[in-house]
């Protein structure tokens, strides 16, 4: 089918781009954590915020693993709904996380991005299975 020639690579690229940004945030999370805290903070607060961000990022990575498995195993390869949803969610997730990283938004926003992009994807994935 001619449409899959475009849909499958687009889905793969947006998925990988989203994954890359999440990994970058994971590796350079010091700046993001400092953006979440008030101006003068204690080590205790820093560590708790850090833990919270690590948890969020780890959950994200876990869900990425599930989605990659679903995608690469070919289960949802020809499902147009899945493809569109995946592309849409990952693209908007990419843009949102880019802003999160560069503009140093507060950590609570990460949870919103997570909730929006991931839960929609999760529901659709489970309905497929």
């Amino acid at each position, binding site marked *: 089918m001619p*449409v899959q020639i475009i849909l499958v690579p687009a889905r793969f690229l947006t998925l990988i781009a989203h994954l890359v940004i999440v990994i970058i945030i994971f590796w350079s999370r010091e700046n993001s954590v400092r953006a979440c805290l008030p101006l003068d903070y204690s080590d205790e607060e820093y560590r708790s915020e850090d833990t919270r961000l690590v948890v969020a990022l780890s959950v994200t990575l876990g869900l990425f693993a599930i989605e990659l498995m679903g995608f690469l195993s070919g289960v949802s390869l020809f499902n*147009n709904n899945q493809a*569109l949803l995946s592309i849409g969610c990952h693209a908007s997730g990419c843009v949102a996380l880019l802003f999160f990283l560069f503009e140093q938004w507060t950590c609570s926003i990460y949870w919103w991005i997570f909730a929006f992009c991931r839960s929609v994807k999760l529901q659709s994935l489970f309905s497929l299975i």
Partner: protein
Amino acid sequence: MAFYEAYSHPALVRYKTNICTRATLFVMVVLCLTYISPLLVAYRSQGFWLKRSTYEEQPVVQFQYDMILIGATNTAGNYVAWSTFPNFNRLVGDNLRIPSVSVQEEDRNQDGKSDFLNLQINIPLKPEEQMFTIQLLLTFTYQLFRMSTVAMQTLAFVQHSSSVPGSQLFISADLRLHQRTPLPHRGVHAVYNVSVIDASSPFASSYDLANIIGLYQKRNLTTQLSGAVPVWTVGRAANTPFQIRTQINYPVDTITYPLHTVSVLISLTVSSTYRLGFWETVKFAWIQYVSVLLIFLWIFQHIQTFVFQNQVIPTTKVLPFKQHNI
């Protein structure tokens, strides 16, 4: 013979569907992304709502012929003084020394607004007296007309002291507007149209230069001498008066004014009493929004064409030309 294409126009392929379908959802999402994203992009990149702008205008400045002049004649603190206020002259007592003053305001380019002021003051001094310090306070009326009408009374303060006695002080400066807050873009602003010196007061504190300057500096709109270049000439001949020559230019001023900020796009009910500031703000915001909108429209047009043409989401295709069933 058909040589070239004179004109062409697209024929529309329509994709129809019911209301409760994935296609509707897709179209809703795309519409939101198309029309809201440029607003975010333009807003986040600063300068969406123009907060203030500037304009240039040469003010109408007139010398008010009121001045206070104080000169120190030796290092022990003796001074001579003179002013156009009778109460001040009375308070000064024996130190009063009446100079000869000549004033000339010239309109060089004949546009009805004076361009500079030439002031010459000759203070007679006794042969044993010397002049070390000069403090001169001049009063002006300052008016602006282009946006809001501003009328105020302002002052210029010249002060120069030298450890060497002099024969002449020449000072050349520009009288410039100093704003702490932006001026409104319309209306009358005559709050400062009061005299900087209270001429009817008999108290010495009203004529104390520090008090006058202190009160004057509390205003949000003042004029100050900028680029003042004093030239102190030494070597006064015994019987010549001390000369003060000032040349004060009235240049074109840059005035900042605020535009009205609106946080919500108001519905365009046409009313003849809309303010200039609102439309200027909206005009600049619209330019920014539309230029980013064009990019998003182009991107999503291609995405939607791809999605509907290849039936990624199933819809009913309606072709422009009738299909003949053979």
